[in-house]
């Protein structure tokens, strides 16, 4: 057993050697630290994304949308506003659900246009009140057809102020079919307080305003095409608008001019539903899935599917991060072995001074361990520090609420692998040194 004084001397000598080749030491520590920083960052952000997804789905246990869509797509487009809507459903579905005894609350969702790449969602004031955060400015009532309420970050991002006016754009910026809707000019009526969810990055209007815009738009397109074809001499906009108010006629009209994604009068993208209990959720899910034209999705289940989908990508990122870590350790091994070769003569000298082969090997082992532990320490500090620093930016850009100091399983694995690799590295260095023929080195002198 090694005495305390000797062990202290071994550690001191190891630290002196690390200090004497500062550049290599710093690079080695940085290699591990950067790899671990990546592991920590990916872990923390993944954790936050999943948490946000799960929390977002809890509020509305059921979403009823058009058939033909996948559950994940429906949830992404109607709760998280990050995917294209999957089609439309009749407004009557919303009315039915609202009247249903098993339903506590039902909210219409009409995902249609955007403003500066922020989704405009047609809904009603009850939905905004249900968020429970209140108004940061103005009113949440959506009392006029041109009233718009901005999510907190949407307001910051677009820089709008109360009473500012703007036009919505069909599709997102850069989309093939993107064009500005001149049919209605919205007025900023209010700004929501932060919810910490996807609502922060959205703009809310009356669902009737979405109908209004698209009716006007369809009418003007109809008007243009009649002129081009020469099939009608006069087609007044007003007549078309009036025409569109008749539901039966409208359907025919819509089929003639627009695809299934176009919202027209008496259609919605989906209905968000809160039920009295999970049994009712299950019942309604079955009923509305069997019903022609609709799909009902249990948000909890679909979110789990979504998270599982995310996990597939995460495994790849995790493997990449771990590979970086292993490469960093191999790099340190190479640096260490190079330094050992440079130090052969000194180690031979130590042998001539009566310092045992095991003690010399131990100093090299301690060097490897110190490098790994320092790398892990700095990596953890940098990883959590960087996510803490970037948390506001991630929240603003992606709407994800990052908890910078959360300990994720990925991080735990990263640290374990780094320390284990460090141990292996230390043992390899130690054996390498132990097997060196240092006496031959003395003879060479």
């Amino acid at each position: 057993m090694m005495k305390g004084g000797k062990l202290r001397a071994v550690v001191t000598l190891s630290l002196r050697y690390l200090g004497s080749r500062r550049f290599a030491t710093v690079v080695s520590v940085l290699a591990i630290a950067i790899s671990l920083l990546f592991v920590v960052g990916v872990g923390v952000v993944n954790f936050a994304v999943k948490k946000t997804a799960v929390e977002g789905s809890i509020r509305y246990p059921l979403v009823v949308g058009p058939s033909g869509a996948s559950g994940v797509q429906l949830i992404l487009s109607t709760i998280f506003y990050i995917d294209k809507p999957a089609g439309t459903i009749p407004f009557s579905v919303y009315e039915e659900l609202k009247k249903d005894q098993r339903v506590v609350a039902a909210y219409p969702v009409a995902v249609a246009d955007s403003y500066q790449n922020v989704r405009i969602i047609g809904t009603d004031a009850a939905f905004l009140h249900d968020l429970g955060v209140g108004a940061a400015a103005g009113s949440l009532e959506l009392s006029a057809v041109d009233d718009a309420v901005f999510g907190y970050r949407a307001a910051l991002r677009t820089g709008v102020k109360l009473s500012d006016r703007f036009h919505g754009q069909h599709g997102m910026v850069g989309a093939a079919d993107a064009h500005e809707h001149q049919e209605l000019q919205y007025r900023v009526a209010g700004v929501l307080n932060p919810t910490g969810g996807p609502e922060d990055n959205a703009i809310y209007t009356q669902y009737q305003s979405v109908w209004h815009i698209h009716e006007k738009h369809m009418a003007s397109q109809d008007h243009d095409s009649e002129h081009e074809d020469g099939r009608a001499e006069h087609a007044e906009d007003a007549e078309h608008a009036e025409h569109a108010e008749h539901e039966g006629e409208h359907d025919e009209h819509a089929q003639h001019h627009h695809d299934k994604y176009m919202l027209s009068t008496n259609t919605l993208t989906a209905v968000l539903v809160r039920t009295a209990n999970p049994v009712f959720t299950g019942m309604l899910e079955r009923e509305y899935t069997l019903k022609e034209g609709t799909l009902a999705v249990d948000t909890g289940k679909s979110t789990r599917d979504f998270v599982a989908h995310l996990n597939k990508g995460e495994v790849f990122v995790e493997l990449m991060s771990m590979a970086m870590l292993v490469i960093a350790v191999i790099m340190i091994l190479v640096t260490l072995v190079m330094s050992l070769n440079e130090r052969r003569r000194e180690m031979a000298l130590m042998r001539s001074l009566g310092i045992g082969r095991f003690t010399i090997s131990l100093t090299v082992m301690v060097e490897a361990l110190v490098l790994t532990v320092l790398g892990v320490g700095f990596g953890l500090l940098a990883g959590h520090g960087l996510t803490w620093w970037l948390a506001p930016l991630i929240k603003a850009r992606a709407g994800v609420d990052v908890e910078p100091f959360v300990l994720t399983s990925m991080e735990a694995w990263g640290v374990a692998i780094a320390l284990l690799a460090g141990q292996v590295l230390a043992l390899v260095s130690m054996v390498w040194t132990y097997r060196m023929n240092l006496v031959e080195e003395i003879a060479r002198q």
Partner: protein
Amino acid sequence: MGVTIRLENLVKSFTEPQGGQRRVISGLNASLPAGQTVLVDGPSGAGKSTLMNLISGLMLPDEGRVLVGEVEVSALSESARDAFRAARVGYVFQTFNLISALTVRENLTMPPLLSAGNRRVSVKEATDILESFGLGGHLDKRPYQLSVGQRQRVAVARALSQRPALLLADEPTASLDNDSARAVLEAVISLKRQGATLVMATHDPLVKETLAFDQTWDLGRKEVV
């Protein structure tokens, strides 16, 4: 303080890189009384360094025995030979005598802490010895900040600090100018005065003139005089 050295029918061979064996020391018999000095002489490749390594226990002979005092070095285990060197042998090489990561003072105080059986050297003692060698202004410098002569003096100072019974010096002045060589020789002489047995390999005429060697082991001619 000094120790006797007895070499009995010593044989040592090395494997050549191209294969085959080369016998460097062939049946050497010699004896040196305690406190005496011996010059190990001979051309390059005659086996001078090999002989020192055999005496210190860094190498083992193929045949024969090495006895230092009452200890049969050639029969000891590796760890026992380490302890023997740490306790009784001071070693000075032509170059690379110091641990580059340590300061001048630490080169005296640290090695004893890392080995078994070494005499511990306090910071004050190390400082006093180094000052007596004219190195008081360089205590906290690293070896690369010293001249070659200064480094050799530090090496001798370290050997002196251990108060070894046996000093092995392999061409200690070969890379030094005359002034530096004299300073190193004075240090060696001061150790000799303390009664240490001295085994030195050198081609330096200054050393041969200054030190009155009691014996010469000429490995080239295979003579013990």
